[in-house]
């Protein structure tokens, strides 16, 4: 299959490309940007005038719910939703059922995605067996089975000795440890940011120290061990500042923030809106602004979706009794582009937070349009306005507070391995 993408605004931050050019694809790879290769006869042409052509997005954190929770979503449903959102690589946390603590489960997830062929899923392996926090997982086997890192996700590691050993053991195999910074004792059944809003609503609070205490502890262990680590889902300005400081001191750490943390605050919880029940909690305006600042600064390296599709019943209960999480694949790009509109990031920087930077954190070949690279490509119209609603949403999870928001920036085509896996014109509701 030979493809010719004409007249698009090509933005490839990894290669410093930012100009209107043609792009040529053959045998699933980018073969040229600019003039036509000799004797190139395309099977198909995509007219991309006034559109941005960039690498397919790499989402550092998206749950597809399979295996184990297929009533919420499946790899098929969510990779299609990802394709419709310009995402071609999804990093899946290890808390599936069964847990990704064996090579078999890691292989199963990748094979399913492979067979469906809409997007690639790269799994994170469990840091400890069954995520129990006490016994190290077989990290070498997990790496061989395709895991791009290890994480205990939101489950506690019993003590700092085990965390230290886990960091050292992961470093033995050059695996990045993904850290959800939470002090589990301090959470104390909290379900909303501890502050004026939680006080007003009588909701048990989650203080900022839940995050900063854990970041401080982990930074000390990283300094001790020299292991490479990635802090995922930062929620507070203070934690971002601590990570910036650690980077300045030369520690091998990166961090991400999920897109909704850059837009929502605890004020959005004020009428007990369970769609805004997330973990880590939405914090206050100062934290939101601080996260934006550290993102612009570069200490926060990437933006992820933290996609968590749920059946609607999971959100139909009093606030604290509802499941946490937002169905977020389809808002990842528009909410990141909003950072451009609001002057926080340049367009190139926003795209780099969604492509080459997360790919680098995962240590995978993705997120660039380099000649010879796999042709994973996102084409979007940066000026098109659209509404996320029952008609447009593709994910099985409709649990998003952004329903009926006007979004700017719409994906028109997604290419995965050189195949058009999504085209807005031919879209049908899955």
């Amino acid at each position: 299959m030979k493809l010719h993408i004409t007249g698009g605004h090509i933005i490839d931050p990894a290669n410093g490309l930012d100009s209107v050019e043609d792009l040529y694809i053959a045998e699933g790879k980018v073969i040229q940007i600019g003039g036509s290769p000799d004797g190139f006869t395309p099977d198909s042409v995509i007219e991309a005038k006034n559109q941005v052509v960039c690498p397919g997005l790499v989402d550092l954190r998206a749950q597809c719910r399979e295996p184990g929770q297929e009533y919420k979503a499946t790899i098929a449903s969510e990779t299609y939703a990802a394709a419709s959102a310009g995402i071609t690589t999804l990093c899946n946390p290890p808390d599936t059922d069964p847990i990704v603590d064996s090579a078999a489960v890691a292989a199963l997830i990748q094979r399913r995605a492979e067979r469906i062929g809409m997007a690639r899923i790269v799994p994170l392996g469990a840091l400890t067996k069954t995520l129990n926090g006490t016994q190290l997982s077989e990290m070498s086997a997990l790496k061989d089975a395709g895991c791009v890192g290890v994480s205990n996700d939101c489950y506690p590691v019993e003590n700092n000795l085990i965390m230290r050993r886990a960091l050292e053991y992961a470093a033995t195999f050059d695996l990045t440890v993904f850290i959800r910074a939470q002090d589990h004792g301090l959470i104390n059944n909290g379900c909303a940011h501890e502050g004026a809003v939680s006080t007003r609503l009588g909701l048990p609070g989650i203080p900022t120290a839940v995050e900063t205490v854990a970041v401080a502890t982990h930074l000390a262990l990283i300094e001790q061990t020299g292991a490479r680590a990635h802090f995922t889902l930062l929620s507070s300005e203070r934690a971002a500042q601590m990570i910036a400081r650690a980077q300045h001191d030369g520690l091998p750490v990166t961090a991400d923030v999920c897109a909704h943390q850059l837009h929502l605050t605890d004020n959005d919880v004020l009428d007990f809106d369970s769609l805004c029940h997330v973990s880590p909690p939405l914090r206050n305006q100062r934290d939101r602004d601080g996260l934006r600042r550290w993102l612009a600064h570069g200490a926060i390296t990437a933006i992820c979706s933290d996609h968590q599709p749920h059946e609607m019943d999971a959100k139909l209960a009093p606030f604290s009794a509802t499941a946490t999480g937002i169905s977020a694949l389809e808002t990842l790009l528009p909410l990141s582009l909003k950072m451009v509109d609001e002057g926080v990031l340049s367009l190139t920087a926003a795209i780099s937070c969604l492509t080459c930077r997360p790919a680098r954190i995962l240590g995978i070949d993705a997120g660039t349009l380099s000649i010879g690279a796999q042709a994973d490509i996102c084409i979007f119209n940066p000026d098109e306005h659209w509404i996320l609603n029952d008609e447009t949403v593709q994910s099985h999870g409709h649990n998003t507070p952004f329903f009926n928001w006007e979004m700017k920036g719409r994906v028109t085509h997604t290419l995965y391995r050189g195949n058009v896996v999504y085209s807005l014109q031919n879209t049908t509701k899955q």
Partner: protein
Amino acid sequence: MNKQNIQLDQDGGLRHFLTIEGLNRALLTDILDTAESFTSITEQTIKKVPLLRGKTIVNLFFEASTRTRTTFELAAKRLSADVLNIDASISAATKGETLLDTLNNLEAMHCDMFVIRHPNSGAAHFIAQHAAPHVSIINAGDGSHAHPTQAMLDMFTIRRHKGEFHNLCVAIVGDIMHSRVARSQIHALSTLGVKEIRAIAPRTLIPAEAETLGVHIYNDLREGLRDVDVVIMLRLQYERMRGASLPSEHEYYQLFGLTEDKLSLACPDVIIMHPGPINRGVEIESAVADGPRSVILQQVAHGTAVRMAIMSRAMRHKIVVAGGESS
């Protein structure tokens, strides 16, 4: 603050009663005045008015309660409504039925009003958001969020003793962190325009950024009681206490227990209130609880009239009486 206040109908009248927050002074005063007119009924030989005749009211309690449930039942009966009491803590909920399914089942039985107590903050809001349009929801306590009918009967008691609100200094003492009563009282007192509200407790029992609620915070009981007109004691809520909030009842009583001695710092005509149930010797000395300045039992007595007022107000649009509304 709310995108739209779901408690009010299009004309600004009461539809649900979920929290004091967002209700204006006129509405609160109207409830107090209506309650005043109902107190005479409870003193008559026939203690009934036909305002809610033919209406069905369900008391749906997911948490234990004696005082609140009984006075709600009494209030409904005195308004001539049919009353159903459901102790949900031992019914369908324990068989795995969701809150919404319980609600839908009761709606299918054509009930007109639900009085709900639930351990989760926001439960009453949740139910109001999902209830059929003809159903009114009264919050009888949700988690640590609100207990607005209790706050209104406290306001009623204060007004009966003090007349006006604007010159008053009111102290709320104890476990403010976990208290839905305190939150509702604070909103009611500030809406009714008191001069000062003090929250008195050790720092472990004061919620984060509590001053944003409009209270002055004191960590010393003696200092906080100086020249106050009303003292509201709160019960230590053991069932909501998590983690290490207090070292012992003994130390708490030494520092924050209300005694005659400490009370001497308050205004001479101070009144002592407590939403009950009281823990004698933990937050309050028996001599104070049973003393001349205690109005604790009057609070209970006022509960019925105030709840009659709130129920009839929330059902106003459905009350058809010859010559219009009678309240």
